[in-house]
């Protein structure tokens, strides 16, 4: 016979459920602690993965996943810093899918020898033919601007020599030809045959299928994917390089402060996108390890070359003198940045830091502004990516500084998608923005930013002499003295034109529990989680 529901009984039952829930709240961290001792890595990520398509650069989280589920022929080499932490080595290459490689003297022929044991997650071999098909899929699906940039415009330039040997014949020598064609996202190996089974008349390259499904070639395979919540990955049973971790749990924690406190409490092992303002405190937190790396992610003030007064050299010089460089470094980045002094970011090969004479000097800024004949009460609308602390704070500080010159900045906050669209359509007069080259090379940065048809030449910069030098630097060997001289001259010209006002180059700060071992910092700042282990 059912018991009568009285108010008292209802109260006790409710309290019982709440109490039980609270007890479980206490017990679960203990269970988590036990799990931690196994090789289970719990990672807090900011947002869900947009897609499993490796040809789309859809964001940091997608790139993080790409490194787990897709292999590349090679990877950057590793070196140890004096503090024992690991960082990429530009001068060395680590073998991945490829066990050896050769680059011809004219740098137009690249040959890979593949690991004969390499297999996709379904057991199919990753042989020379599979590699060719993977590259061909990228090119045919028009998925990769990168391969074309890197001298590989079509699949007929890929030659299968034997079961494990592939040759790439580039249409021109490219300074970063090896890295660009064998290490970046466009070299992620996909199971093209399997993808093409899902091709339709509307979708001739099976991209729809690949949005949410794939056959992995990387060290891990997707075990479960709860959209919007988490993804769990386990080692690829056919991986040619065994992983130490037994499982990786990628937990979506959208709020940066929440990511910070769950890391501090030890409920996760590794967190991405921790706010820079939290880094000083986290350094003092027990059980937490913070690794800071000088990066190539530069922050700039850009101004259009399309209209006055922005294209007036005196106005541009006034802006260069008016920037509160030190304040930006201290307030925005909390000292976790380097001062930038060129039109290419710090920490890239070919950067020259002695060609930027500008420091904060409002008197000189006023003199230049007077020569520019800027009308009194001049107002500029400046788009700001709402939610990006660096963008917001830097723009506010610049606004304060320019107000002293009688220039009013009107901040227009907007989502990143809108700001990026305005920039790409070259509809912005002035803005603070950042850019990180995936290859730490000045020529690579120039290719994407400084040539007339560069995709992110948001400001329409054009200088014929600089254009010739930039184009030459793209094809010359990295590190050659002749190329270094051309890059120096390039920076001299563009800095003289005040092509951009370099503000600072930020550090990348990686935060993890102390027991996480094996982290290596790469130029694209994407953690290769497969290399980690629980110590």
């Amino acid at each position: 016979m059912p018991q009568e529901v009285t108010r008292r009984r209802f109260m006790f039952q409710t309290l019982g459920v709440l109490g039980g829930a609270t007890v479980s709240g206490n017990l679960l961290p203990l269970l988590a602690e036990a799990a931690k001792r196994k090789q289970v890595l719990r990672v807090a990520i900011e947002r869900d993965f947009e897609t499993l398509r490796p040809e789309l650069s859809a964001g940091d989280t997608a790139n993080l996943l790409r490194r787990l589920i897709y292999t590349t022929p090679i990877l950057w080499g590793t070196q140890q810093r004096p503090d024992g932490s690991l960082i990429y080595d530009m001068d060395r290459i680590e073998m991945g899918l490829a066990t050896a490689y050769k680059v011809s003297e004219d740098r137009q022929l690249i040959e890979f020898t593949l690991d004969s044991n390499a297999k996709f997650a379904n057991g199919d071999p990753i042989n020379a033919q599979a590699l060719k098909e993977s590259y061909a899929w990228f090119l045919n699906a028009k998925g990769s601007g990168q391969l074309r940039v890197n001298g590989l415009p079509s699949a007929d330039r890929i030659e299968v020599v034997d079961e494990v040997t592939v040759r790439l014949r580039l249409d021109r020598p490219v300074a970063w030809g090896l890295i660009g064609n064998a290490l970046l996202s466009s070299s992620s190996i996909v199971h093209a045959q399997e993808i093409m089974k899902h091709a339709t008349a509307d979708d001739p390259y099976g991209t729809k299928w690949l949005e949410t499904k794939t056959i992995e070639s990387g060290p891990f395979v997707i075990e479960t994917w709860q959209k919007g919540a988490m993804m769990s990955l386990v080692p690829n049973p056919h991986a040619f390089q065994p992983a130490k971790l037994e499982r990786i749990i990628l937990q979506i924690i959208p709020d940066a402060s929440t990511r910070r406190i769950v890391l501090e409490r030890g409920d996760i092992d590794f967190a991405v996108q921790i706010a820079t303002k939290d880094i000083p405190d986290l350094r003092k937190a027990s059980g937490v390890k913070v690794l800071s790396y000088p990066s190539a992610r530069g922050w700039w003030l850009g101004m259009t070359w399309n209209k006055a007064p922005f294209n007036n050299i005196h106005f541009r010089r006034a802006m260069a003198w008016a920037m509160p460089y030190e304040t930006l470094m201290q307030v925005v980045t909390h000292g976790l940045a380097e001062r930038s002094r060129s039109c290419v970011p710090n920490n890239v090969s070919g950067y020259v830091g002695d060609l930027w004479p500008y420091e904060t000097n409002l008197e000189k800024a006023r003199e230049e502004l007077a020569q520019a004949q800027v009308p009194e009460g001049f107002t500029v609308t400046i788009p700001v990516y709402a939610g990006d602390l660096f963008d917001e704070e830097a723009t506010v500080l610049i606004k304060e500084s320019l107000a002293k010159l009688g220039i009013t900045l009107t901040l227009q906050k907007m989502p990143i998608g809108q700001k990026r669209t305005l920039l790409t359509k070259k509809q912005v007069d002035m803005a603070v923005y950042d850019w990180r080259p995936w290859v730490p090379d000045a020529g690579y940065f120039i290719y994407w930013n400084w040539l007339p048809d560069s995709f992110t030449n948001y400001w329409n910069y054009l200088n014929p002499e600089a254009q010739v030098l930039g184009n030459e630097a793209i094809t010359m060997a990295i590190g050659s003295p002749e190329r270094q001289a051309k890059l120096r001259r390039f920076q001299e010209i563009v800095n003289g034109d005040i092509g951009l006002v370099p503000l600072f180059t930020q550090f990348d700060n990686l935060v993890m529990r102390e027991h996480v071992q094996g982290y290596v910092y790469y130029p694209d700042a994407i953690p290769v989680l497969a290399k980690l282990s629980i110590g």
Partner: protein
Amino acid sequence: MPDSPQGEVMEIISYVARRLATIIPTLLGASMVIFVLTMLIPGDPALMRLGNFATAEQLQSLHEEMGLTKPLYERYMLYLGGLLRGDMGRSWRTGNLVLDDLRARLPMSIELGVCSMLLAIAIGIPVGVWSAASKDSVIDYSGKAYGILGVAMPLFWGGLVLVYVFYFKLGIAPAPTGRIDMLVSPPTHITGSYLLDGLLTGDLEVVMSSAAHLVLPVITLAFVTGASIARMTYTSMRKVLASQFILVSHAYGVSPRAIVYKFALKNALMPVVTLIGLQVGFLIGGVVLVEVVFSLPGIGRYAVESLLVNDFAPVQGFVLLVLVVYLLVNLLVDLLYGVLNPQVHNG
């Protein structure tokens, strides 16, 4: 007025049918407004997909793939045709049909919304009633203070404070990392609510873990929503308690308890029910900030995250879904009026 119970039932059915019929043109009109408004938002979704390392050729190709090269009217007709077939379009961000994404996230939003609303009612109505019945007492002032504090408190801040105190400092709440502990497997999908599915499958670990993960977000939401309910209950109760029939009841010697709970409360509930109806829609679709703080994958967060990266199909789907919820809850509220006060005639 119907003269038999059967006639009354028929009248209600006819009323409900007429109200439901008005939903269709409302949704059609809304679909056009939402579509045009989202299209007016400046932002190119293809650029977000490609990132910085793209070429003009690649951008053009992706525009074609995403149907962005078609004229606006053609895109709307395709969208409308899809809607009529139950297809809300595809999210480029998740790669899924919007309907599937909403279906996956809605149970979590309903679970959170319903639990929060039940707790808010359990707090708000008693506080409002006690406060109104004890004018100028400590209870009255405390109730008013709660009403002001609850309404003024930002949800985001409230959630963070609870997390900081109960999880970070005291360690008695679970990590705010989603619906369930990372190391607990989700239950077999039956309803989509982890709490219900855990109970239905007899998985106690899931029930305990999901209940534990709901406690803080539910308290955060219920504290704020309960304050609005308490304020409305208080105002309505004060009005009823000052009315003639209550004074007559006092004169007849009816006990104060009976006056408050039997006579006044029932008459004071109508505006409270209206408010609760409005709050249900908010709790299901508009609690993005709480979803963010507690890492809960609800429909509100889905819509906002999509909006930020110019993924418009989920935004359109979300607005239509919330509109349907509002329309249905409004209908339910109107029907409840008739139950609470038979003098109200649904016709």
